[in-house]
């Protein structure tokens, strides 16, 4: 039998349904793979052997069924899973077992997927390399001395290392897409509000979006369709039905993009990217033109302000969202010696429990919201957000989707961007604008540069998630998928 861990989710689902292979066998194969390679990759913070096998057994007995029944999935550790440790890769939540599960986790369970465990990430989803995890970084399967991207490096690496065919990530400024790009996997950010945030440990509430990670576009679309949809427990959840992303992916796979207009964002194809990244990007454009697409250059003049606006909005919201971690109701408590006041214990707890990047952003956010500074910083950033939204809307009057490289550089070596935080922020240069707008975007592997994967980003108008899947599937049909060297 061909290696089960090399199969796509679509294929696995089909074989389990036909009875060719059992869900337990599939689960076991992936658990074995994790045991074999994760000591070197470190994609997982927690592996739930028993839970996974039990869930697989329920599929085999016919108790649960669905389009992804029996398919293993890994979940980023920022999402609440009842009874299973959920830490957001922070010391402040070490060992915390939530008494409830996120809506998307419940949907994954009802669909019959088999959760293998929780994946590593930058602490509280703040970072672009997973180096800020309090439990050690994840190593890129393409080169173990390099970062797997962030904040969702664990989910992407697990996919790339064949530890799981599917994973859930969350994208606030690029945290699904950029890891996808540097690990040669598919990572999609749905329209904001398209996937429920109930149970997602909040980083930046107006930007956070859970989404699918996979090795193929169709797999990502399948996972997207299972987790997306209105949730009454999330007030910002979109009430409209989920677009037919699976249909769109299958349509795109036929390789015909006649009449589709691709807008190349002028501001993102300048000198900011590594030459190898730009070369792979341009080759992909040519491939898409061969499939019938038309390439148009569009200017989005305010995109240059997206990064600074994001690094005001996100820290501001997170400074408030993280205030609840105070050692009172859950998580770490430090310094409670019977003499100290609550205020002291809270401060000691938070200083011990949060890493440096989290602390920087809390302080920055507190500053940006302070009276006297609000208008110049947070207030101004929200206005920039309006201007960026208008840029997108204007662009989408001319083209169907916008395209750019996903990230300016391929996977960089550990430690090369941690001494200057702003250098790390630059990794999100091309992914951030669509978060501010709220639109969907996807990263598809499109080539290699010096042996390392390059990602191609496709951005669509809000609610038009299907459009990006179609173009992504078409590109995939032209360039194929990319396999990392054996681990």
């Amino acid at each position, binding site marked *: 039998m061909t290696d089960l861990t090399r199969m796509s989710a679509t294929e696995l689902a089909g074989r389990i349904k036909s009875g060719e292979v059992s869900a337990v066998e599939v689960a076991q194969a992936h658990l074995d793979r994790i045991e074999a390679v994760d000591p070197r990759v470190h994609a997982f913070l927690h592996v739930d052997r028993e839970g996974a096998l039990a869930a697989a057994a329920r599929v085999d007995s016919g108790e649960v069924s669905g389009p992804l029944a029996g398919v293993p999935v890994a979940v980023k550790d920022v999402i609440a899973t009842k009874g299973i440790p959920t830490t957001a890769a922070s010391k402040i939540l070490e060992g*915390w*077992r939530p*008494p*409830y599960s996120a809506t998307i986790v419940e949907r994954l369970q009802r669909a019959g997927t088999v959760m293998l465990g929780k994946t590593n990430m930058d602490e509280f989803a703040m970072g672009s390399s997973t180096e800020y995890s309090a439990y050690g970084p994840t190593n890129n399967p393409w080169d173990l001395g390099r970062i797997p991207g962030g904040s969702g490096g664990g989910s992407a690496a697990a996919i790339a290392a064949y530890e799981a065919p599917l994973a859930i990530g969350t994208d606030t400024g690029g945290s699904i897409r950029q890891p996808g790009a540097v690990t040669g996997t598919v990572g999609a950010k749905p329209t*904001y*509000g398209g996937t429920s945030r109930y149970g997602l440990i909040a980083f930046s509430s*107006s930007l956070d979006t859970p989404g699918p990670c996979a090795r193929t576009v169709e797999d990502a679309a399948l996972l997207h369709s299972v987790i997306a949809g209105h949730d*009454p427990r999330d*007030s*910002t959840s*979109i*009430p409209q039905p989920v677009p037919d992303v699976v249909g769109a992916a299958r349509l795109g796979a036929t390789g015909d993009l006649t009449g589709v207009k691709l807008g190349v964002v002028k501001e993102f194809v300048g000198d900011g990217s590594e030459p190898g990244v730009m070369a792979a990007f341009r080759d992909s454009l040519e491939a898409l033109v061969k499939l019938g697409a038309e390439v148009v250059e569009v200017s989005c003049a305010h995109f240059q*302000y997206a*990064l*600074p*606006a994001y*690094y*005001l909005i996100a820290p501001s919201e997170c400074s408030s969202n993280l*205030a609840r971690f105070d050692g*009172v*109701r*859950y*998580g*770490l*408590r430090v310094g*409670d010696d*019977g003499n100290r*006041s*609550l*205020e*002291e*214990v809270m*401060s*000691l707890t*938070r*200083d011990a429990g949060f890493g*440096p990047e989290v*602390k*920087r952003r*809390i*302080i*920055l956010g*507190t*500053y940006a919201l*302070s009276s006297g500074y609000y208008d110049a*910083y947070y207030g*101004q*950033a*929200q*206005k*920039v*957000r*309006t*201007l960026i939204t208008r840029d997108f809307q204007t662009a989408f009057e001319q083209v169907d989707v916008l395209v750019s490289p996903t990230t300016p550089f391929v996977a960089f070596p550990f430690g090369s961007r941690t001494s*200057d*935080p*702003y250098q790390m922020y630059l990794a999100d240069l091309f992914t951030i604008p669509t978060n*501010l707008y*709220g639109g969907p975007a996807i990263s598809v592997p499109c080539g290699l540069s010096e042996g390392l994967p390059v990602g191609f980003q496709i951005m669509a108008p*809000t609610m038009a998630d299907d459009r990006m899947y179609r173009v992504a599937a078409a590109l995939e049909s032209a360039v194929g998928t990319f396999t990392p060297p054996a681990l």
Partner: protein
Amino acid sequence: MAAISREEVAHLARLSRLAVTEQELDQFASQLDVILQSVARVGEVAADDIPPTSHSVPLTNVYRDDVPLPCLTQEEALSGAPDAFEGRFRVPRILDEEV
């Protein structure tokens, strides 16, 4: 735009209940200074008559009915508590009177 001083960082850390060390203070002050100068670019955009965007979804009036929903048991509620006593969360002595 003004750079951020060490004192301001210390004040902000107190406001956010972060007992930063002296070393962290030095480090953060210089790092935040760089970051702030970069993000201050948002001020370059003339945006006086531009309305701010707080939500990217065009939704309004999302409500639930005034009907009880299942809640947690006391045990579940206290399950993560660092310290609990007779059904309540126990905390060390509070200094400040409520605002």
